[in-house]
């Protein structure tokens, strides 16, 4: 079962820019670049703070905005040779064109969604299949706002941090230590199963070291290892001082 998680964020850098233009009630043909660039960068910071994955495209548009801003600050190049070419166009023109185009398609997308849709508003015979009776329960979407999701994400990150700490722990285990620990245990109990040797902290590293320690102790003839049957518990005995 999969859940679709929808975030009410922007569909891309152009979407964010259009939102800012609308929010500030700005004429799209006369965008105050300094104001919009500042607000755009503030939004990027906010999205970063929320740990939202910032796609590279957002940064590309930020660079474009800064580039336009710098070009607006420069004095217009002087007309050479008595104005052969009118190359002194508004540096914002290309961006405005892109915004208008995007806006048209964004509106077209909304219009598509407003149509009568198959399997949402109208149905034909056969498809999609009818729900089997046991699955007909109401499946409600999970509702969570963006902050709940960010919290959940940060909880997961916190758990990842703990996993990192465990890796640092590995340094402490050495084969010699493990051999001594096992001998100490066996001195008290005379015999133990391999599982009992693992005590409470079962990590992959500990299992490997325990296994190596047992092999080493067998080689040194300090312990004997028995198994009653295949897959039965492995019993480890200390070799008594005879």
């Amino acid at each position, binding site marked *: 079962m999969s859940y679709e998680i929808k975030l009410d964020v922007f*569909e891309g*850098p152009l979407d964010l820019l259009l939102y800012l233009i609308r929010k500030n009630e700005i004429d799209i043909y006369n965008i105050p670049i300094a104001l919009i660039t500042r607000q755009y960068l503030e939004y990027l910071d906010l999205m970063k703070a929320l740990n939202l994955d910032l796609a590279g495209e957002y940064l590309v548009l930020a660079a474009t905005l800064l580039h336009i801003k710098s070009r607006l600050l420069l004095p217009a190049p002087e007309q050479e040779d008595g104005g052969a070419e009118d190359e002194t166009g508004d540096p914002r023109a290309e961006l405005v064109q892109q915004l208008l185009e995007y806006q*048209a398609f964004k509106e*077209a997308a909304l219009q*598509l969604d407003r*149509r009568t849709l198959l399997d949402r508003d*109208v149905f034909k015979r056969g498809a*999609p299949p009818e729900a089997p009776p046991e699955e007909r329960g109401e499946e409600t979407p999970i509702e969570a706002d963006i902050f709940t999701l960010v919290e959940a994400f940060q909880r997961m990150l916190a758990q990842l941090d703990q996993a990192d700490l465990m890796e640092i722990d590995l340094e402490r285990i050495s084969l010699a230590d493990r051999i001594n620990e096992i001998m100490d245990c066996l001195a008290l109990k005379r015999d133990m199963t391999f599982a009992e040797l693992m005590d409470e902290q079962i990590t992959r590293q500990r299992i490997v070291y325990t296994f190596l320690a047992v092999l080493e102790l067998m080689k040194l003839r300090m312990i004997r290892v028995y198994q009653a049957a295949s897959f039965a518990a492995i019993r480890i005995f200390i070799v008594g001082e005879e």
Partner: protein
Amino acid sequence: MEEDLAILDALIFSSETPLTVERMREILPQYDRQGILGLLKTLAEHHEARGGGFGLCEIAGGWQFYSRPDLAPWVRKLKAGRPQMLSPAALETLAVVAYRQPVVKADIDRVRGVDVGGTLKGLLEKHLVRMVGRKDVPGRPILYGTTKRFLEVFQLKDLTELPTLTELKDIQS
């Protein structure tokens, strides 16, 4: 005449996909194109007058019965799961393909200002978009277009039924 109306009714009822006029003519060869269209018009009127739960519609180059849109809340209860909605990103990508087809991915990327690789793949998997060829430029990039399924899902007779983008621009200004 009445019998032929009933035959057409049965043909459309039995068809999985919108039934084309050409296919109907193969089965009822005594009619020309205009004749079939006349029958379809009468048949649609009959269903309309009956006031039943479904009607005859011309969609995606063919004819098919669809349930009445105002009855959707009840039909949805019968069908499995929630209706599959397209995300805003998918709809935007689909809109660019629909209006600009045949179109290469780079052009869709440029219009939307983001990489559309993921959404485009999703639309291909849903059979709303298909590869229609390759552009004759270096690298021969794939050209994309919409499918018959797209027309059916969005209940369009054909692509000319899409509102033109310039109309949209007029609304804004």
